[in-house]
């Protein structure tokens, strides 16, 4: 079963097939998405702020385990809102989200926290605590499974937590920066620390909201390659938003394009023409 056939949006269009691209980076070296195990199921999701126009207008989407999905679309198309609604960082106005088998809108606070703990979320602005050390920021990832001061600052953390955090930092190549203040890092380094924080979380699935939008092209490539490598290594499901068509085609198995809060098209990346995808920004 291809990713395209999984799309449920009735108004999603098929793109004309252009010159075939090489297979996405993430597809190589890992098992094909398991369509029987849908990890994210969004049905008729709606969101409007304070009675304003709909930011999301009946979005429906299924993401099977192991798939990598790129959400593209112009500013204000609803990409970030969609990701945030899936974790109820923003409360949806209507529709249903089932994430890792849990109906998100029905969860109480404690169960919602436990569900969020399973999802790594990488933000555009990295969202590190600048006044704290890099190591403390990575240890924050342990708050997904541990309450209390042991996961607040590195000097209060257990030896095991500190060692795991150092391992995560080594994995993103920043172990030597462990005690540096997070606000003294470059943009690319900050984003790698944010990725290390999600590794510390031991997630089952990853969301990323324009993870390289604030980075220069080289740093952006580095971060995306690292991110893709980690996702492939852990066999995680990934949903990310991006304005980079090339990133969508290189790092995703499937591209979902949003326009005015609706899914405009939903296609597998294999064989899709980049120029045709750019049409979504017209």
């Amino acid at each position, binding site marked *: 079963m291809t990713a395209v056939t999984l799309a449920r949006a009735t108004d999603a269009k098929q793109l004309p097939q252009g010159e075939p691209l090489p297979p996405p980076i993430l597809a190589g070296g890992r098992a094909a998405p398991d369509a029987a195990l849908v990890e994210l199921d969004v049905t008729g999701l709606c969101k409007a702020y304070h009675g304003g126009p709909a930011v999301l207008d009946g979005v429906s989407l299924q993401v099977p385990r192991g798939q990598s999905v790129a959400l593209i679309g112009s500013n204000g198309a609803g990409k970030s809102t969609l990701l945030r609604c899936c*974790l109820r*960082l923003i409360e949806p106005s209507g529709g249903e989200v089932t994430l890792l088998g849990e109906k998100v809108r029905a969860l109480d606070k404690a169960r919602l*926290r*436990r*569900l*969020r*703990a*399973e*999802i*790594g*979320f990488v*933000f555009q*602005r*990295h*969202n*590190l*605590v*600048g*006044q*704290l*050390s890099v190591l*403390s920021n990575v240890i*924050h*990832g342990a*708050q*997904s*499974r541990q*309450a*209390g*001061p042991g*996961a*607040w*600052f*590195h*000097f209060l953390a257990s030896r095991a937590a500190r060692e795991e955090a150092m391992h995560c930092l080594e994995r993103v190549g920043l172990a030597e920066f462990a*005690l*540096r*203040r*997070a606000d003294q890092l470059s943009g690319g380094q900050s984003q790698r620390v*944010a990725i290390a*924080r*999600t590794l510390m*979380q031991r997630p089952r699935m990853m969301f990323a909201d324009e993870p390289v939008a604030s980075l220069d092209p080289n740093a952006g490539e580095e971060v995306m390659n690292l991110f893709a490598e980690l996702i492939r290594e852990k066999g995680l499901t990934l949903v990310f938003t991006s304005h980079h068509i090339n990133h969508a085609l290189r790092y995703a198995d499937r591209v979902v394009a949003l326009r005015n809060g609706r899914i405009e098209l939903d296609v597998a990346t294999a064989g899709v023409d980049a120029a045709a995808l750019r049409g979504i920004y017209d």
Partner: protein
Amino acid sequence: MTETAFSGASAGLPTRPAPARFRRPGNGMSLLYLGAAAFFVYSLHGSEISVESLVNGLPNMARLIGEMFPPSIARLQSVGSAMLQTFQMAFAGTVIGVLLSVPLAICAARSLSPHPVLYHISRALIALFRTVPDLVWALFFVVTVGLGPFAGMLTLVVDAIGFCGRFFAEAMEETDKGPQEALTALGARRSGVVFSAVLPAAMPSMINSSLFTLEKATRASVVLGLVGAGGIGIELKVAMDLFQYDQAATIILGVFLLVLVVERLSSMLRQRILRQSV
């Protein structure tokens, strides 16, 4: 190419004229400015400003200053001991006040308060502590716990809570919401978000407020002695009442040095702390 584009733009006239440098205030604002100016003139009248009194007072000022010098060192030991007690009141009052301000400020920060009722109670408490002058609190504590430095310290605790509670809450509310969202997204509890993201981000501002409170408390603790709440103030009052202006000069110089040292030390400490990370 860019140069051509710029030079082309600068050569031609813009299609829209540049906006005026200043906006003419509306009728309402003009009336408000006029009213403020009129009230200022009225306030000068209410303050009974008199150039004649000022000129006539100049010789008295010169005489008083003349009598103050040279400062007397006759009671240096008791003045030094009262000075130490003044600083002890200020330091203890500030530390206890700052520590109590943290939980109160969390409750008084709209985005962090556990419950709206708690938010309003905390805000009201902080407003009460801040708006009632410290001399009134000193009188209250002198009457309730008796004369002495303990009443002064309690006054400074209340003063510190009123000041720090408000500024801590505002610093917490103004912190970047990004890290808080990141921690919420990874399943952190509210306490985790507050201690891991909000407090570290608000810390530079909180340290500034705390050190400023210490400076303020040091100055205030001098005055508190005037109403019997301990410290150097009572020594100053006695010296002035007995026309021992040379001894009063010693006390004033001591207070000046104490406040100066506290300000310099707190400034150095501030720079050092703000550069560190945890």
